[in-house]
């Protein structure tokens, strides 16, 4: 357990951390987030005494961090930084073993540990241990950075925007890997980021900081649903908005597709089949001359019931489900899941066809709720 008690830190008389109190439980994944200059990195670095607090104390498992000297303390706390920070003059194995070597482990122990750790991230020892950092990809380098922090089996790992410099795909993979490692090894991680996506994905708990003060301390779900104040809400922006609009603000109009293939009811069946094959669709929406909804005709209906030369008005299905422009998206989703139809129609007050909602529009809308609006 890490207890941060009444920590104060000033630079040139300007307070950057203002009487901060925070308790982190064993095995917890805590994310510190906030705008730049909010004090999140300073807080992190005070835990391993890279920065000394002006007053207050930090206890790890009940013992003040000032009981050990800074170097000994840091050997028992893993530390991963942005921009990787691997030692370019050392091989992968030497980098991983930096802390074990400082702790005077035997050669056998170190070699065994390196094997184990490389195994964890699926980088075979034989291929990778003797490589230098500049011979690895960015993602592999940051994996080694994480392994270096894990090497001496510290109970706590501090991470300072560790994935900031990686491309989105690699970052995503590494986030998954680190989260899985944290769960399986049962370690405590304190993680600094300015990226809300990352915080929501990684954290058991998110600590939102601004101006050296904790603004909110909550589980990701809770923070999304109920941002504590305006600062938190603004920072979360799209995330919070997407969350709130789930099934409430989202209307059928906002997610319908506007392109609908329509035709009129006096068209002949063969003409309709021709139109379908030309447009590569298997159904048409039937309207009158001024686009008022009349019904739907599918290729199957034409095949089984249609008579050549007859108008489609006689074959079409008129009880097809429609939703109103201003209806909640929920209503359309319910129709789609209940009836197993390929789409529902969206009409306005005059029953004029305005668009359709397909299963694809439904999954897109759901995705935007889960991952934020991707445009």
């Amino acid at each position, binding site marked *: 357990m890490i207890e941060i008690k009444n920590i104060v830190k000033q630079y040139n008389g300007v307070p950057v951390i203002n009487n901060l109190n925070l308790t982190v439980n064993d095995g917890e994944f805590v994310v510190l987030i906030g705008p730049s200059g909010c004090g999140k990195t300073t807080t992190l670095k005070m835990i391993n005494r890279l920065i000394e607090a002006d007053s207050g104390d930090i206890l790890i498992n009940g013992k003040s961090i000032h009981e050990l000297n800074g170097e000994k303390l*840091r050997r028992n706390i893993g530390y991963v930084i942005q921009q990787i920070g*691997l030692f370019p003059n*050392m091989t992968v194995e030497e980098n991983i073993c930096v802390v074990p070597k400082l702790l005077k482990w035997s050669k056998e122990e170190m070699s065994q540990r390196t094997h184990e750790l490389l195994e964890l991230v699926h980088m075979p020892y034989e291929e990778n241990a003797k490589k230098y950092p500049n011979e690895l990809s960015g993602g592999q380098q940051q994996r080694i950075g994480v392994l270096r922090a894990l090497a001496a089996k510290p109970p706590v790992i501090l991470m300072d925007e560790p994935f900031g410099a990686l491309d989105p795909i690699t970052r995503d993979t590494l986030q998954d890997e680190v989260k899985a490692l944290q769960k399986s090894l049962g370690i405590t991680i304190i993680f600094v980021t300015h990226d809300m996506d990352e915080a929501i994905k990684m954290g058991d708990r998110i600590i939102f900081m601004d101006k050296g003060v904790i603004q909110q301390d909550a589980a990701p779900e809770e923070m999304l649903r109920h941002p504590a104040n305006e600062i938190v809400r603004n920072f979360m922006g799209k995330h919070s908005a997407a969350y709130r609009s789930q099934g409430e603000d989202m209307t059928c109009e906002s997610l319908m597709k506007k392109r609908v293939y329509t035709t009129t009811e006096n068209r002949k069946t063969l003409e309709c089949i021709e139109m379908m094959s030309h447009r590569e669709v298997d159904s048409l929406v039937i309207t009158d001359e001024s686009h008022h909804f009349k019904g739907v005709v599918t290729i199957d209906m034409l095949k089984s019931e249609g008579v050549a030369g007859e108008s489609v008005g006689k074959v079409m299905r008129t009880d097809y489900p429609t939703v109103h422009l201003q209806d909640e998206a929920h209503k359309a989703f319910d129709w789609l899941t209940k009836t197993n139809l390929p789409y529902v129609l969206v009409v306005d007050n005059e029953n004029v066809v305005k668009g359709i909602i397909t299963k694809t529009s439904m999954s897109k809308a759901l995705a935007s709720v889960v991952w934020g609006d991707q445009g």
Partner: protein
Amino acid sequence: MMEWANRYGADLIQAIITHLYYVLIPVALGFVIAVILGVLLSRVPKISGYILPVLSVFQTIPGIVFVGILFLYVGMVPATVLIALTIYAVFPILKNTYVGLLNVDEKVKEAARGCGMSPLQILIKIELPLAMPNIFVGLRLSTIYTVSWAVLAAMIGLGGLGDFIYRGVGTNNNMLILTGAIPAAILALSLGALVDWIQKRLTPRGLGGKRG
């Protein structure tokens, strides 16, 4: 050719040995002094911003003047030459060591602190190895400069390849000048190559140098 070898051969070998002695000892001493000073100065970069320009002024005093002054105080002994050349050998190595140490990425140093290394461990395990390419640039410069400055030893009658050159200039004998100048040039090139070779052996593959 045979005549030349008979006349100068023994003298030439003696002169090359003396010359080497005037190069290797000052460069070795200068290297040790420069690296220590470079490390110390790199700990206080604010102060070093004033110290280094002052030192570089000394560098611009012509060697001939400096040897002359030392000669007055120390006398016509090899120590005069060795002291002068050592002082000259220090500066290129010092400057490059200092720059090399300052150029070590702050993030890498922070990572080292975060791993629990002491300042001395960071210096020895991280900073000096990473500054190695710069230090060698300085060593190479010092070595080559010292080969040419060592010619000045002859000015106060202390031998070396400069002997041939001064005598050649004095007697208007081009053959004699070349007998001193060509071996001196070869010496400079081969010592430079030796430094390059040592550097390749010592630089880890991770720093971009190719090994072996």
